[in-house]
């Protein structure tokens, strides 16, 4: 490659073109696999799109999507509320942070799915257990990354707040939140991803509705195209939310999201 600016421009274009080509390549690969494996083992992209559109038209997909999104929204809101609260509270106290940090990281390292029966015992089979399970997945990254972001709050800023006799809520909203925002958005994104995963896992294991539930139901009839249609919807939801978060992270100059450890 040449080193002049034209070459550099072409280099940037190659990256953009490459990025656009990745989904195309994936679809082509999918098509190739489907052709080789045969229609009964793996449905083609076209058949999947057909099921997807049909699913929205006659409503089976839409009904499940609605249930899953509702569960997700409630679980996520609670995970953010509790996670940010815990993260800020521990971030403000060196002592309690030292007490709780290893405990939180320890619980974070346990595969949470094994504890799901406990949630089922406490909340029964309804939507509450899915909400609680999604919350349990999402609350840890939110709390852990909020706690880490609290390190960036300037002591002097908090002192100014105290000297101006700010209420706790004012201190939180006007000083702490703007200070931790760059780190916080990363925590909110990872928290969303894990809540989503928790909700879908919960639906897959013990549920009577939702995308995860229907996905497992289709194993019996080997309805590959419909399973793929559900997967496409799940991937689309995850991608759309994450792209929005990436935009926010970029605007706020957030760093370190790439290396963050996501666990279930």
């Amino acid at each position, binding site marked *: 490659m040449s080193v002049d600016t034209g070459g550099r421009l072409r280099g940037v274009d190659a990256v953009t073109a490459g990025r656009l080509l990745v989904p195309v390549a994936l679809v082509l690969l999918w098509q190739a696999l489907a052709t080789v494996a045969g229609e009964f083992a793996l449905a083609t992209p076209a058949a999947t799109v057909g099921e997807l559109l049909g699913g929205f038209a006659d409503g089976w997909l839409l009904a499940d999507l609605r249930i899953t999104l509702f569960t997700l929204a409630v679980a996520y809101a609670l995970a953010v509320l509790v996670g940010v609260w815990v993260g800020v509270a521990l971030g403000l106290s060196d002592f309690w942070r*030292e007490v709780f940090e290893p405990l939180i990281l320890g619980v974070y390292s346990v595969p949470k799915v094994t504890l799901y029966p406990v949630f089922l015992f406490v909340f029964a089979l309804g939507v509450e257990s899915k909400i609680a399970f999604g919350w349990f997945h999402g609350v840890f990254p939110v709390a852990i990354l909020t706690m880490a972001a609290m390190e960036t709050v*300037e002591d*002097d*800023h908090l*002192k*100014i707040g*105290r*000297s*101006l*006799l*700010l209420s706790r809520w*004012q201190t939180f909203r*006007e*000083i702490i939140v*703007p*200070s931790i*925002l760059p780190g916080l958005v990363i925590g909110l994104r990872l928290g969303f991803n894990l809540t989503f995963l928790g909700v879908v896992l919960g639906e897959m294991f013990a549920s009577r509705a939702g995308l995860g539930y229907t996905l497992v139901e289709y194993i019996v009839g080997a309805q590959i195209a419909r399973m793929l249609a559900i997967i496409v919807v799940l991937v689309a939801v995850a991608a759309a939310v994450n792209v929005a978060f990436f935009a926010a992270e970029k605007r706020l100059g957030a760093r370190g999201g790439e290396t963050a450890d996501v666990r279930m």
Partner: protein
Amino acid sequence: MLEIDNVSKTYGLGDDRTSTVKALDSVDMTIDRGEFVSIIGPTGCGKSTLFELIGGLVEPTEGRIRIEGDPVTGPDPRIGMVFQSHSTFPWLSVLQNVTFGLRMNGVDKAERRRRATEMLDLVGLTGFENARPSELSGGMNQRVAIARTLVMEPDIVLMDEPFGALDEQTRLILGEELLRIWRETGATILFVTHNINEAAQLSDRIAVMSARPGRFKAIVENDIPRPRDGDTMTTAAFNDLVQRLWNELKDESRRGLEQKTGRRVDAESGDGAEAKAETRPADT
């Protein structure tokens, strides 16, 4: 106006709280309305502790601080604080920084704007209302911090080495500006610094602190006539004052330095303190 009545402060040090450090020992002083008083002392003598005690951010172990006879038990609206540096909020514009305290205290928008505009004019930042702190120099940021405090119209302004991170020229210019602002507002100013020239340039009285435990070793009257400007600093009277202050301070500075290196060794031997010590600036 402000009484510092025999105040002492003891801290627990590092990991082991059974060993304590006396930061301040029997500090005693009364400051009159409209007075400009500087406190100078070696590094680690407890100047900043005194600053936070008067501001109501920490409680004295012994003694009392009173404002017009009322004991200070917490932050008081009659006191405004200006911190060392980087204390402007980077997420707010200059105007939003200055109106911050007013907004938090429920002052309406038109009034906030009026008072902030006046204050920005006073500190010479008219035209920078919409700038971000990151776009401004260190000196301009300190002007913003001063305006943010003064806009609350405190009776007493506490300043903790506000020009400490600035270069010498900026420091001199801001010193002169501060004197003008002081004249125009009639506030009482308590100014913490480790810079002898700065103390001599600005104050009516200068309290010299000893190395830890900090006490007032001497309180020096500064009768160099006002207004003082750049030329004042070349006069014999000024140089005499600086010399006198330096004589009071010399031994204390040496002791302070020894304590500081001694303390750093202490802090680093403690459990878990190593990682923290690396990221901490040398003089906290």
